[in-house]
């Protein structure tokens, strides 16, 4: 058997030995003398910690800020703008027959507008910056509640490679799965306990008004009292949409130092694979659900930016969306709408905050087009809209002086 011997030959060894003896004496005193006190203290400490953890978990369970266990009845329902987390609760707590999915381009839609335009009971699950893995995962969770219809704003870049769901640090996948890890993480979250305490205080009538006034998103997550307001613009907020912003954004993304960003993550084979695995398979697995899929109306500047600064990525987008069109045409439960060539919107730069994000007035137009089926892709000629878009992109001339002015201004 290997045996270490007391190893120091330097002066430190004597000190170490001395401290050994002192420490040893102290240990013996503990065990032979009043040895029970430290053990009792330890037990009390562990019990107190456990009791506090249980109290916090109980508070979260009772108030249930995410409405993961039950819809809010005893306490005021509050919502968070962190949609990746909030959607796990919305899917469980809200009544709906239609799901609305997308990225930041779809995040400002109001559920009440969707309901009115399409005569449905909708649930908006759009999430900023999501990829196809995340969207499919959340949609799959929502489809377990058997909606009749899915409306899906499909951006091409969602098919760029992203982290797999279990490696995705932004999406709390276990909350959607409602497994032990997800539930334990929810109940043992100090942030949730804090939000619960705040919601509890807000539900006490004498405190309601003052707590509501003190509720700030600098400290709290659940600050929205109406589900319809989640990420929707407030009427009193000035809309940030005008042509100057759009051209400034164009100048920004086409600047030589940044133009590489336009093609970042664009790989045709990978994007097709992600479409097949995440989107096509999900739709094919739910033949009883109608999928209204639409390509959003980006401003023409987005396409022109790619044309001028990243033609390779533009070709990938053309080819990918052509593939998507062909594949979706094979599925009887899909209606594909292509709004990319609606030039009365896409060429009016006053509709945009940058080169892609459109205004709430365009949201309403999108809903009306979905209702009327004006831009429904014809199964007999699935590439017609794409060809029109290509012609528009080819022909568009950016007003150089304006872009230069914006570039200098920035």
């Amino acid at each position, binding site marked *: 058997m290997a045996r270490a011997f007391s*190893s120091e030959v330097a002066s430190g060894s004597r000190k170490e030995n001395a401290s050994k003896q002192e420490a040893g004496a102290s240990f013996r005193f503990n065990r032979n003398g009043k040895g029970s006190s430290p053990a009792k203290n*330890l037990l009390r400490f562990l019990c107190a910690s456990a009791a506090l953890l249980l109290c916090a978990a109980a508070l979260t369970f009772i108030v249930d800020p995410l409405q993961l266990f039950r819809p809010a009845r005893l306490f005021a329902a509050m919502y968070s703008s962190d949609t990746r987390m909030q959607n796990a609760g919305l899917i469980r707590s809200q009544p709906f027959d239609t799901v609305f999915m997308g990225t930041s381009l779809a995040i400002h839609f109001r559920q009440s507008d969707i309901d009115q335009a399409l005569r449905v009971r909708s649930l908006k699950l759009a999430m900023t910056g999501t990829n196809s893995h995340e969207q499919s995962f959340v949609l799959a969770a929502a489809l377990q509640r058997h909606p009749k219809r899915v409306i899906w704003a499909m951006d091409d870049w969602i098919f760029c490679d992203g982290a797999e769901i279990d*490696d995705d640090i932004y999406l709390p996948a276990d909350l959607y799965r409602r497994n032990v890890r997800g539930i334990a*993480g929810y109940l043992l979250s100090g942030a949730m306990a804090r939000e619960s305490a705040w919601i509890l205080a807000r539900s006490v009538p004498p405190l309601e008004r003052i707590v509501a006034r003190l509720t*700030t998103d600098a400290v709290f997550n659940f600050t929205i009292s109406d589900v319809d307001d989640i990420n929707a613009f407030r009427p009193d907020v000035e809309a940030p949409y005008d042509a100057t912003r759009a051209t400034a954004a164009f100048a920004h993304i086409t600047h030589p130092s940044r133009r590489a960003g336009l093609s970042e993550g664009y790989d045709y084979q990978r994007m097709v694979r992600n479409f097949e695995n995440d989107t096509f398979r999900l739709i094919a697995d739910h033949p009883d659900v109608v999928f209204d899929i639409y390509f959003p109306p980006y401003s023409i500047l987005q396409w022109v930016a790619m044309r001028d600064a990243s033609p390779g990525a533009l070709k990938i987008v053309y080819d990918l969306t052509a593939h998507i069109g062909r594949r979706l045409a094979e599925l009887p439960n899909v209606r594909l709408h292509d709004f990319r060539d609606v030039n009365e919107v896409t060429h009016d730069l006053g509709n945009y905050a940058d080169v892609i994000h459109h205004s709430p007035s365009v949201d309403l137009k999108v809903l009306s087009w979905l209702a009327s089926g004006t831009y429904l892709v014809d199964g007999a000629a699935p590439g017609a809209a794409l060809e029109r878009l290509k012609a528009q992109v080819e022909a568009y001339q950016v007003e150089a002086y304006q872009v230069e002015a914006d570039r200098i201004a920035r």
Partner: protein
Amino acid sequence: MVRLLTAVEKGLMLFNSYPFIFLFLPVVLLGYFVLCRRGDLAPVVWLALASLTFYAFSGWRFVPLLAASIAFNYTVGYLLIEKKMRSEWRLAALTIGVGGDLLLLGIFKYAGFFAANLDALFSTAIAVNIVLPVGISFYTFTQIAFLVDAYRGHVARYALPHYALFVTYFPHLIAGPILHHKDMIPQFERADSKRADPHLILCGLIVFGIGLFKKTGLADGIQPLVSLAFGQAAPSFDQAWIGALAYTFQLYFDFSGYSDMAIGMSLMFGIFLPLNFNSPYKSASIIEFWRRWHMTLSAFLRDYLYIPLGGNRHGRVLRYVNLMITMLLGGLWHGAAWTFVAWGALHGAYLCINHAWSHFAPKPGLRLAPLARLAGFILTFAAVVVAWVFFRADSIAQALSILATMADPGHIVLGHSEITKAALIAIYAVAAWCLPNTQQIMRYDHTNRTVGEHFRDVQMRPWFLCASAAVLAFGILGIQQHSEFIYFRF
């Protein structure tokens, strides 16, 4: 195109995670004390294996590298300690040992940096893509110290299991404290540390809880504010200061929280780790700051770099040169980037100025001493914040841009959001400047191996028990899905 990838593996087991706190640590603790009844060696082997398992979560492919590093250094150490060699052969063995360690560090940590700079200068287009093994800087430094001491004749032979445990000991393996063999191996040998002591377990839990709260409650809480200065958008004067101060406090609570957790969990095993922090932001000079910040690294650089370089033994000028070299290399130790070199250079310059001031400036009178200390405190803190901007920035250009904004009060936003965030910063400042630190609360004495003597053998005061239990509970409640310690990447 040159790409330097220094990411850690995604499976890293964090101290601030449920699997570590509720599964790994209790199982290892239980196994350790059960095996302690079966002799002296079994618990040491158990702890070493547990440490390797812990390390394997950060990337199993680096376990052979760690094992090879241990075997290499142990062999060289054995030659230096056991074999009666002529002095030139001893020097050759030391050179091979230290050179091998530095070569390993150079390949895994600096090859990409070197290649990128060559590419920038000569357009070589050489691609270097190396993943940085977690903890390599820490375990390499501990072993260099061992070899140097073995060469100096300050070490007798250690058994391999004890040596392996000294290097791999999981509380320190990933991000320190940088341990010294003289301090640790005798503790692993000691029979008393192999008996479960409820007092030490309790004290360890409290220290661990304080560290966990510092990380999950304080450091993670202020992290979003950092992007005000270091994010994509150009900051205003107030936003730049809020972001820089937020990073200043985030780094302190993150790293000192990690160190507290390491000390706390080690206490549960009856092992006393050295202190790494002693309220550094209370310092009134840069010299004092470096006696309080990352103390084990400072001690290492002093004993194994600054003093061998000549220290202060060859006149004032050479002392300053040695200080600059030490701090430049200390900066580079943190990461292969010019921002770290700039950070080290800045601190080297600070130290030179501080030493020169101490030598040439008149000493303040008794009445002026408090005022001088206050001025020193403000100046030191401001200098440290400025240096942290280089430490955190992605590039020298970004650091200079942020510093320029911090020096230009012409553009101030100071909206509701900025005021709220400034108030939050003030709370952190009060915590860092006014509250006692962990070792003061717990009366942790590393030298004499004592802790919490004030409540040993007496019933703990209920308020203290409840408060410390609450700190642990809040620390656990603050655990987020995935929040790495900043120093993991060094």
